[in-house]
């Protein structure tokens, strides 16, 4: 291939419905790595382009369990092993009193895990992206909807990809340099 390396082809659409229809059309043609960009989450678009539910929920659960178990262990270790004090004959492992901190750090661990997992799985922070080179792409956070056929998709070939997008009557069709 002699053409300059490109990231993919980008098409702009005026509405969420047009973007969903375009994504559906392209997916039906066997594209697996289609990227769709919208200024707000669109119900069902994720399923159309084949987004997976992913690991966020299990990781959140794990964060919560680690936070809770760790905090209970810390209190148990401090109060029973490292610094046992008899206060009014109460058991050293006085578990009801250990619940508040355990509960709080369970929530904290889960919330941190949910946030970090969301960012990490999304590959963020990533301050630079080839799409930011396309000036019109700035409208993706305002009122426009974009579909990108990336060059890394196994079925990608510049000519047919351009024709495929042109069939969908986009407002704009751009080549995104890599």
């Amino acid at each position, binding site marked *: 291939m002699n053409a300059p390396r490109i990231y993919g082809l980008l098409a702009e659409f005026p509405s969420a419905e047009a973007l969903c229809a375009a994504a559906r059309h392209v997916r039906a043609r066997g594209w697996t790595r289609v990227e769709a*960009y919208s200024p*707000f989450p*669109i119900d069902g678009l994720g399923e159309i382009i084949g*987004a997976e539910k992913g690991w*966020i929920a299990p990781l959140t659960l794990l964060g919560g369990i680690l936070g809770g178990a760790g905090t209970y262990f810390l209190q148990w270790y401090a109060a029973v092993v490292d610094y046992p004090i008899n206060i009014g004959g109460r058991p050293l492992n006085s578990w009801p009193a250990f619940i508040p*901190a355990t509960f709080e750090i369970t929530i904290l661990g889960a919330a941190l895990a949910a946030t970090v997992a969301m960012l990490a799985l999304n590959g963020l922070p990533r301050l630079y*992206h080839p799409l930011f080179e396309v000036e019109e792409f700035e409208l993706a956070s305002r009122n426009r909807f974009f579909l990108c056929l990336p060059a890394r998709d196994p079925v990608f070939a510049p000519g047919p990809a351009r024709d495929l997008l042109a069939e969908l009557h986009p407002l704009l069709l751009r080549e995104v340099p890599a």
Partner: protein
Amino acid sequence: MSTPDTRAETDSLHSRGSAVLRPGWGYASVTDKIANIVLTDRFGWRWWTAFLFASAGVFALLLAITWLLVKGIGIWGVDIPVAWGYAIGNFVWWIGIGHAGTFISAVLLLLRQKWRTSINRFAEAMTLFAAGIAGLFPILHLGRPWFFYWLVPYPNVMNVWPQWRSPLVWDFFAIATYLTVSLLFWYVGLIPDLATLRDRAGQRGERKSQVTYGLLALGWRGEARHWARYEWAYLLLAGLATPLVVSVHTIVSLDFAVGNTPGYHSTIFPPYFVAGALFSGFAMVLTLAIPLRHAFGLQDFITGRHLANAAKVLLATSWLVSYGYMAEMFTAFYSGDVYERYMTVNRFAGPYGPVYWAMLTCNVLVPQLFWFRRVRHSVALLFVLSLVINCGMWMERFLIVVTSLHRDYLPSAWGMFYPTRWDWITLFGSIALFVWLFLLFVRFLPSISIAEMRELVRESAQGEA
């Protein structure tokens, strides 16, 4: 105020109009309207005047804190028997105010309430600022505030650990967690809007804003896979924040309820505190929303319906709080305990009696006005009533802290609490700090969630909202 008609030509669809969003708004026009408050609108003399006064207040607060560090907490009116004065009352008051934001964001999200959308962002900011200010008070009250980190369990050369059975340690965990989770929730919600601001600033050629918002937006692009994970994470955060909200004021109430002082030692405290927190928090939401919509012409987004709904929540929580007052009185007399009974009579007719009756007026009597539709839809009246309720709730916190301590078991150990000028400066200084932070927030971050407003526009255009 910019009307939607002048800007909407680029929009392919428009909101049809409903109780929570006026008609004629499209994706571009809502985006520009909210983003321009931050990016292009001039600050104006009103903002600068408010900022100047708030800054003076913050300066006074810093002065009061400095003097406190120099002299010790003897500069306040606290002494034995009333060792907890304004500082603890203020702490409970502020942390209560900090509850409505998360409640609106999390609980109303889970309940799919459409009127949440345009008020959640600034309510979350309110929560963050109020909880941060609240956290300041117990630390200042420590006597030696510079050792506050002793509350953190870390292996240290003193070879001691925090006392895990103490509600004050639980409190530290609750407040620290609440602050962190509120911050996460707020920031995650902000990411798409920060990306919008980055792109808007880029289109206008404002390099500095573009870079600043761009760094904060973490490179958000709005890809469908990202949105799917984002929504999932946001929902999980809401689900986690919901029990957290309830737990935080519960633990704050345990600071009191675990002690066996008459008036503190009561099982009604946790729910009663949580209800009071929502009551004062929603009052503060109104106190902030009314000037905000007026100052920036946001009446199309924060409509009469939003304010009226907040008023209904105030009416409901006012009854919950009233139930708490009644349960306290009933239990005191039903228990037959002479100290509990005396504490209650002392609240009615003791030296702090006038504060008690003023509190009942503000928190029980005045909110009954919200039964009237005309009151719920009168913006000016709502603003005044919200201030009255804020005062009432502050008095409640003051009374809980002080009346139980000043006359407990031994009459020979009774005493009075009189606030000093430093008590007052610290209280009003903390309010000034809150206003100061909020003024900065409305000028540098979008006070309404832009991405969620675009979603609302779409739902409205399709007749779903």
